């Protein structure tokens, strides 16, 4: 039985469930109370004070985001006292903020800018504190830039990093006027535990945390007549890019994305989904091999459960946080890196292009991919396999710069080859997608039959639950796989690193037993990645997920092993999964890292 609380907001009566905050109650009355530290994905903080409201009878103002409603409360959201305080607070924030808006990367997508615009903050009342502070910009990370002069200390990033991601690379440091958001002993971001996931960027209301952008470098490559610029697009980009270019969340813009990339001048527009399918072939085979070694050969050096390795934020997280579990990681590179390695080998050979003249660009929903591309082991082609990684947001900027009217574009198809994909490759973009794709293929390899789920939709592994688990009983197997007869394959999926940490801890403590585990660093999987359009929240991520699954349903091929280009690359180039060439180009290794 839920207790209902009656109150009035701006003299309008409203009845809401006990525990509702004032800001939520006001929303029911279509009253928006501005806030900068509050975020749907995060716990309450109540520190920016922009949302203060008057509670009749109380001499002090209350933070609407942090105050639960009480019976007979009378709340005023726009009284003189409130407006004066709110305006003063915005002015204070601006006095401590490098408000050089026209030169800011976040110009046009900044909550502080919006607010100062709404309140028409004109002449600066207070003293500009910025010249007194001697800020430096941390550009050490290949993934993100941290500019403290833009920081308003709302600590959304801190809560994201600790609560959503259990990383805690960022925390509040020092006090008073010196208070700032910092890393372990103020070390540069590339030296600390930061996983480069970019979730902080997605939630930063200002330009204090942004992706490190490579837009100019990519333009230079395109303009260079001596370079052949290939571009790959990750699955989650096609269901989110539209948000930056006029569409509502959930719009599928795959065809327009391809057209736009061609118009930008890329020489070949290819699809990361192709290497997602390839990942399934390699990783699925690796899983079956591990199972055989453990179950039949009783090989104790093989670690089960096996963990997926597609998410570079997750990789860096486990390297820092659970280095003892590294043997559990699949040795497969992420689809981006498989693509990169193949672009400068297989693709170059087939096209007759010298790999040194190929510039490999990827469009990713992810900031950690920028770091991943710079890892020293990611040079198996003899060159840096992926040269530049752009986020969904950076691509949108390029499209706008090029004057492309995105919504009016016709749909076009990816180039061949390394452009064909299956629905299994597409769903890599959602949490549970790699698992579903792997099961569709592995089950069929072992039994010769399709997975026993209606229309190939393995629904137990879908959805936004933080940790999901599922079981598939394997029966009537093909003779080669007789050791799996009757085995119940137990799998688990976690997304968001806090959930990953919970799952890893349970595994380390021996509390749970699985065979295969999918981990994605970001909430919702890649569709909620740190390079995706801002804002983000659960509703938006659900819409993107729906779009991903619709994309899958609409593709004629929905199983990785049926992708004709995959069949072709094994025939022409790789031989078979886990072959020598595969190992050279498509697999990698990991390094333990320090705990801070």
């Amino acid at each position, binding site marked *: 039985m839920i207790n209902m609380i009656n109150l009035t907001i701006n003299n309008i009566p409203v009845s809401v469930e006990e525990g509702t905050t004032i800001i939520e109650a006001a929303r029911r009355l279509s009253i928006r109370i501005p806030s900068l530290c509050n975020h749907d994905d995060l716990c309450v903080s109540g*520190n920016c004070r922009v949302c203060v409201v008057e509670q009749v009878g109380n001499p002090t103002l209350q*933070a609407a985001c942090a105050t639960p409603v009480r019976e007979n409360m009378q709340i005023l959201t726009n009284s003189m006292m409130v407006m004066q305080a709110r305006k*003063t*607070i915005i002015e204070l924030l601006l006095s401590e903020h490098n408000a050089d808006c026209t030169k800011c990367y976040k110009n046009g997508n900044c909550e502080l800018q919006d607010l100062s615009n709404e309140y028409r903050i004109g002449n600066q009342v207070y003293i500009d504190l910025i010249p007194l502070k001697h800020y430096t910009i941390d550009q050490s990370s290949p993934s993100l830039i941290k500019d403290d002069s833009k920081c308003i200390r709302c600590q959304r990033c801190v809560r994201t990093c600790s609560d959503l991601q259990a990383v805690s690379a960022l925390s509040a440091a020092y006090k008073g006027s010196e208070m700032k958001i910092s890393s372990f002993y103020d070390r540069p971001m590339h030296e600390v535990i930061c996983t480069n996931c970019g979730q902080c960027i997605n939630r930063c209301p200002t330009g204090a945390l942004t992706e490190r952008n490579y837009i100019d470098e990519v333009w230079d490559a395109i303009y260079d007549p001596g370079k052949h610029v290939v571009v790959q697009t990750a699955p989650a980009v096609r269901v989110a890019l539209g948000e930056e270019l006029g569409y509502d969340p959930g719009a599928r813009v795959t065809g327009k994305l391809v057209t736009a990339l061609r118009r930008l001048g890329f020489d070949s527009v290819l699809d990361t989904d192709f290497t997602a399918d390839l990942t399934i072939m390699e990783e699925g085979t690796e899983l079956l091999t591990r199972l055989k070694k453990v179950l039949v050969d009783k090989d104790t050096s093989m670690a089960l459960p096996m963990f997926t390795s597609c998410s570079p934020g997750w990789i860096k997280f486990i390297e820092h946080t659970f280095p003892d579990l590294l043997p559990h990681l699949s040795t497969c590179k992420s689809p981006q890196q498989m693509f990169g390695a193949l672009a400068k080998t297989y693709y170059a050979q087939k096209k007759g292009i010298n790999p040194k003249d190929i510039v490999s660009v990827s469009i990713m929903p992810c900031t950690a991919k920028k770091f991943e591309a710079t890892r020293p082991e990611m040079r198996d082609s003899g060159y840096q396999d992926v040269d530049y990684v752009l986020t969904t947001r950076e691509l949108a900027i390029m499209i706008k710069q090029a004057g492309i009217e995105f919504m009016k574009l016709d749909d076009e198809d990816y180039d061949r080859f390394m452009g064909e994909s299956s629905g299994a490759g597409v769903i890599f973009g959602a949490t549970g997608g790699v698992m579903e794709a792997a099961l569709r293929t592995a089950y069929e390899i072992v039994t010769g039959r399709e997975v026993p789920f209606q229309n190939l939709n393995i629904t137990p592994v879908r959805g936004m639950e933080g940790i999901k688990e599922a079981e598939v009983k394997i029966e009537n197997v093909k003779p080669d796989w007789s050791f799996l007869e009757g085995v119940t394959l137990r799998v688990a999926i976690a997304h968001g690193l806090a959930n990953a940490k919970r799952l890893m801890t349970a595994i380390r403590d021996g509390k749970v037993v699985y065979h295969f585990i999918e981990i994605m660093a970001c909430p919702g999987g890649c569709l909620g990645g740190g390079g995706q359009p801002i804002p983000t929240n659960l509703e938006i991520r659900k819409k993107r997920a729906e779009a991903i699954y619709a994309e899958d349903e609409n593709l004629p091929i929905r199983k990785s092993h049926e992708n004709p280009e995959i069949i072709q690359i094994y025939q022409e180039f790789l031989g078979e999964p886990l072959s020598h060439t595969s190992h050279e180009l498509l697999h990698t290794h990991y390094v333990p890292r320090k705990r801070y």
Partner: protein
Amino acid sequence: MTGKKQNDMETKKLTRVDYIFRPDNTCLDTLKKSLRRDRDEIILELIDSGLKGRGGAGFLTGLKWKLAKEAAGDVKYVICNADEGEPGTFKDREILDRVPRRVFTGMALCGYVIGSKEGFLYLRAEYKFLAPKLMSIMAEMNQEFKKLGLDFTLNIRYGSGAYVCGEETALIDSMEGRRGEPRNKPPFPVTEGYLNKPTVVNNVETFVNCTIIMGIGAEEYKRFGTDSSRGFKLFSVSGDCSKEGIYELELGMLLSDFVEEFGDGDTKAVQVGGASGFCVPRKKFNQTIIGFEGIPTGGSMKIFNSSRSMYHVLHNYLEFFEEESCGQCTPCRVGCQQLLKGIEAVKSKQRSSSYLDELVKLAKVMKVASKCGLGQSVGNAFVSIVDNFREEIIY
């Protein structure tokens, strides 16, 4: 000893009393006697005594204990706030040095009443030198509790030097091993405090008062002070005075009597309640009652004579706040910087004197919009000094 009435307010003559430091060995007897009493009866007696928290905020101690007792949960905590950091306050140190058993007895009483088995002394970093002695007394008392059949253990935790950790929820965060930042209230510590369990946080002197009340009874205690401010309290007297030090005085006296007793004959202003308190100019001495009906104080009384520049006094306080704000909430973090830079700009004529009016408005916003008592009280000193000594700030 009821004194003269002024503006219909009851006041008391300045009277020195001797309860807190009076040497005696009755703590254990008081505890023994109280353990035989009904818990609610003790709460009623505390409420009846009118004792308000001695940290400065002035919440009824008995009511706080009642709320914690009634809060759901098997595990509850008692915390003694010994993070004495208000500029000009140094009486808790003296209490812990001279009569720690009275403090610990008060904590044990509280543990008994609310049903807590563990109490912590949160000792400010600068008082660590007291720790060896305090810990050995704690160990003795823990044994005594056991003998009395009271399941209560005393323990010690240290601050790290942040002023804001005197704010009870920041203190709790600090005890939990986190950065000390005030929490949103509600929930209050009495329902969700240390480790999210019901917790009573009281000042050192408050616990001592509880022990005293249990010893002498509320009736006797109520003879002291006024309706709004019962009892007596310790004052840390400093500045331009004839006899600085710690004095135990009955509550409800007029500031004029206080200045007559402690001033150097040339007193221009008294800062009542430390940096977070109010500055009272000479002309208001005889209208100002020291107590919850007038200006309450955690004990700090700073006396300034005519040789002092109130600009420097204010500048000093603002420097303190600019550094000691936790930095979490906007009004306090940025407001403190703006007030400090603001008076500097007015003084150096970079801003006109009317900018002071903007700053007063800002200080008032800080008072209503800051997250905790720290930010809410910066305006006290600022507005009272600027209102009363405007020329000194400008010229």
